[in-house]
């Protein structure tokens, strides 16, 4: 379904954010990427739909090689890739409905988009999704009037209305409180399963990753340092991801580092 091979990204600043990342996401699969801040998780996700241009490597979505598409073809490919952002990415000054329907822009003419002349079918679907994410009745509220949890629900609705094959989700809950985080995650996973969409999700909280994901990748300094089922993510794997230590080679573990590993459990 999504196949990434040898992906490298070096920013113009010289930051090597990704140093050759390869992995696959299968149909209807939920894959979590975990790793410390600065590991390259956001960069990875933004490279998949080429919001950032990858420096090297290939990305296939089904049989489409995303990395070699022209601008026009890329726009068509993006219609199949839904995206959910950490800071929601809603257009503040547009209404909830406009935000949701902006997920259909790829299927609309510029003139109709400008005149807010949306197909009836899209509007019907938008209402349906809004009530699924529990936001019915907010259609005409401006996005910046909503709470964080509500905004993320609208963000999810915008991605889902695209009818994407895959959802790219970048730390959807780290701007939310724990209770809201849990609800938003449950909602996201429910919808994905209901609609049969694969999910590639960056996640900060390890416990959420182990709970919701089928497969987990650990990213550190732009490299995949762990790969396995959620159940396989043990303490030593976490150490490797978050502290860059390979416990098998490490003989002496000082008190100091013991302290840090308990910290990590609470993340």
């Amino acid at each position, binding site marked *: 379904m999504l196949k990434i091979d040898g992906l490298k990204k070096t920013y113009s600043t010289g930051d090597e954010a990704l140093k050759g990342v390869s992995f696959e996401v299968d149909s209807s699969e939920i894959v979590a990427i975990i790793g410390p801040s600065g590991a390259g998780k956001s960069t990875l996700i933004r490279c998949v739909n080429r919001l950032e241009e990858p420096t090297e490597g290939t990305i296939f979505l089904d049989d489409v090689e995303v990395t070699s598409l022209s601008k026009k073809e890329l726009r068509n490919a993006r219609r199949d890739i839904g995206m959910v952002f950490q800071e929601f990415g809603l257009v503040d000054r547009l*209404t909830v*409905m*406009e935000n949701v329907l902006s997920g259909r822009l790829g299927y609309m003419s510029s003139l109709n988009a400008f005149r*807010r002349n949306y197909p*009836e079918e899209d*509007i019907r679907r*938008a*209402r349906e999704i809004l009530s699924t994410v529990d936001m019915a009745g907010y*259609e005409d509220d401006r996005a910046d009037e909503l709470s964080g949890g509500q905004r993320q629900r609208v963000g999810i609705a915008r991605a889902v209305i695209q009818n994407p094959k895959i959802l790219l989700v970048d730390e959807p809950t780290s701007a939310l409180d724990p209770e809201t985080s849990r609800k938003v995650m449950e909602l996201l996973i429910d919808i994905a399963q209901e609609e049969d969409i694969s999910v590639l999700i960056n996640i900060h909280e390890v416990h959420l990753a182990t709970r919701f994901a089928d497969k987990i990748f650990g990213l550190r300094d732009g490299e995949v340092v762990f790969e396995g089922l959620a159940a396989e993510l043990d303490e030593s794997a976490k150490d490797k991801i978050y502290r860059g230590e390979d416990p098998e080679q490490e003989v002496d573990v000082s008190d100091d580092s013991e302290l840090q590993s308990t910290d990590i459990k609470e993340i």
Partner: protein
Amino acid sequence: MWNRFDKRDNIRRYGTALVGLAILIVSWRVMNVNYEYLLTAHYEIYDLLYRMVPPDLGYVNEIASPLIETIHMSIMGTALSIIVSVPIAYLAANNVSPHWTLVYFGKFIISVTRSISAIIWALIFVVMFGPGALAGIFALAVRSIGFIGKLLSEAIEEIDPIPVEAVTATGGNKIDVFVYGIVPQIKPAFIGMSTYRWDINIRQATVLGLVGAGGIGLVLDSAITRLYWPGVTTILLSILLIVIFSEGISAYLRKKIGGV
């Protein structure tokens, strides 16, 4: 079904657009444009460029001294306006003004001097002092009173009252309060706005000569009257030069000492 705009919204939106369009069309009609001029415009522009290029560089000798006069006018005009605007801003700032009637008086002076362009002030001062730099200096000074006075009085109105109270509490008189309580708080903004105004005044000073108030504008006017276009180009280039020069200095000073 859902629509971004309901009927009332739509009437308002199209109504606004229609009114806007009507105003535009009426305005255009009022201007009574002579379309025949437009037909010859491209020829005139070509002709103008043909006459203006190349510039007469020998003309530099003749324009050097009016150019320097322009700079002097801008400095004197700004300096004079600084001297006058400080007391006026003090009167117009409602948190420190001695009396509320003086607030209105100060604000009145500020609005009147601000609402009339420097070039119009120059027309008036040329009648008073005759043609020459003096009229230009007064024109720049009076127009700048409105500018500096407004910004300065707003800066004074926004000061932190605590230092002022502290100086008052230690037994300071009005002058002490002004010097120790107010001045330190507004100094960077004041330097910034004065420098900025000087920068504007150089640009203004280049045109005051068009109505006889001294500086490079006088030479520009006479070159145009004589249709001496290569000289006009030289003058325009020299203006470009001093404007860039003053903008550089003003940017440097504001970065170093000014707050604006």
